[in-house]
């Protein structure tokens, strides 16, 4: 006679099914799962359906999902942000309703009640580094000049376009066949924040602090064109040979041939493009240059356009919250601290610090004082915070 599984047992078996597919199941649990599947036909069918559903998901390539850079940087967002609890609405077109409904129904019909106790009001998160101010919101300025603060986790509908945003990423979808004009919208990331946006063609862009990116909700026409108005971005372009990808900056144009690269336009007049994968052509005025992986195209007003090898730690460190200084003038370090951490930093007048340099590394996930002590120990430049929280070098 077949024994009936309790709801709780079923949930546990579902948990183990996902563990098995994700490759994290423990040997003991695997034996239990296999025993249950061989015994219970419904669960066995459910497992086959689940495996099938996941094999259908084109973007659920497990190997690829393990890559660090595909995921947001959690440590970068948990510290300064007190909790905002906004219900997240998911879009559903119900193209694959059967499996989802089945899974959702079996999975969670009674789960959760013993975990999310509604009585407990969430206490505010304590910033780990009290000297850092709360970061400002990332904003999206639409072509019609309306401005949307991308805070919390929300869904916003703008005409035929649905935006989904969290504290660290924006995605959007356009209703099929809907006429969306190619209006340009501007995403602005303030100091101390990083933000990711996924464009209409699935191209992924990670923006560093103090960056502005202009893009349309849909790429009409023969090419996909966006503009990095200022700042720094890491770009992973979705391949599409029939519609070349072009990034404009104030001083150059980059034509992309399917690729991953970092583009830095922080310094006025200077653009640096470090190529990680693929190939790009960089154009500045009449000059143009094809860049190979491991090389960086640099464009400056003095030297024009040239290529040089780049140090991956220096060029890409920001993606893990690090910045490397190499004989960097202290005034420039002040600018970078403001951008990275959102604190004002100044050099007191009369201090020798204004002509000094520093080499080393800052990690935004560590207390800023650790970095200040490094500076003090290696250069002798002392520091203090005034009552407004401004950092002074003296």
């Amino acid at each position, binding site marked *: 006679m077949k024994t009936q599984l309790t709801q709780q047992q079923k*949930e546990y078996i579902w948990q183990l099914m996902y563990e098995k597919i994700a490759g994290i199941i423990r040997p003991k649990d695997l034996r239990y799962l296999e025993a249950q599947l061989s015994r219970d036909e419904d669960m066995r069918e459910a497992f086959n359906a689940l495996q099938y559903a996941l094999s259908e998901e084109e973007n659920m390539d497990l190997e690829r999902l*393990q890559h660090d850079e595909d995921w947001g940087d959690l440590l970068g967002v948990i510290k300064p942000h007190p909790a905002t609890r906004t219900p997240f609405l998911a*879009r559903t077109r119900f*193209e694959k309703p059967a499996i989802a409904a089945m899974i959702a129904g079996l*999975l*969670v019909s009674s*789960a959760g009640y013993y975990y999310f106790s509604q009585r407990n009001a969430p206490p505010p*998160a304590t910033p780990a580094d009290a000297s850092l101010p709360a970061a400002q919101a990332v904003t999206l300025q639409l072509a019609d000049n309306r401005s949307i603060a991308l805070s919390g986790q929300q869904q916003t509908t703008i005409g035929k376009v649905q935006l989904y945003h969290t504290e660290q*990423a924006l995605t959007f979808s356009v209703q099929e066949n809907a006429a969306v004009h190619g209006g340009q919208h501007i995403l602005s990331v303030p100091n101390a924040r990083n933000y990711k946006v996924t464009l209409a063609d699935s191209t992924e862009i990670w923006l560093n602090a103090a960056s502005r990116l202009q893009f349309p909700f849909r790429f009409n026409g023969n090419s996909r064109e966006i503009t990095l108005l200022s700042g720094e971005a890491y770009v992973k372009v979705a391949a599409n040979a029939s519609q070349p990808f072009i990034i404009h900056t104030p001083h150059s144009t980059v034509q992309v041939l399917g690729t991953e690269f970092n583009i830095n336009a922080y310094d006025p007049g200077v653009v640096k493009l470090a190529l990680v994968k693929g190939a790009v052509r960089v154009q500045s005025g009449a000059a143009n240059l094809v860049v190979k992986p491991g090389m960086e195209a640099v464009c400056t007003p003095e030297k024009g356009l040239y290529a040089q090898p780049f140090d991956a730690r220096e060029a890409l460190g920001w993606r893990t919250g690090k910045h490397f200084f190499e004989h960097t003038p202290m005034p420039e370090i002040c600018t970078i601290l403001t951008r990275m951490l959102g604190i004002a930093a100044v050099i007191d007048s009369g201090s020798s610090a204004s002509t000094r340099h520093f080499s080393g590394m800052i990690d935004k996930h560590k207390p800023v004082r650790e970095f200040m002590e490094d500076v003090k120990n290696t250069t002798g430049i002392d520091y203090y915070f005034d009552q407004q929280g401004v950092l002074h070098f003296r």
Partner: protein
Amino acid sequence: MKRKVVPQNDKQLLRRLKAGDADALNDVYKQYRTWLLLVAATSMPDIGPAAAKAAVEQFFIDCWNHNLFNNVNVPLRTFLFASFAERCKKQRAAAPFVS
């Protein structure tokens, strides 16, 4: 830049989470995000991979910001799975019907 995740003991991780160790959150996140992404992808199949990832990220952030780990008295994986699955179900139920 593929990184090998060294599996860590759930009990220790949970203890560190309760002690407010942000590195433990990062370890749990790296260890279990792919697993939960599969849950998101199958229970909310139409939100797309980018939004599914964002949902997983936001789940960890909310757990942290709301100190939810403090009240956990079941195995860590059980907590993560049940809470996240519940959340996906709610989001799915809240979705507007578009045919």
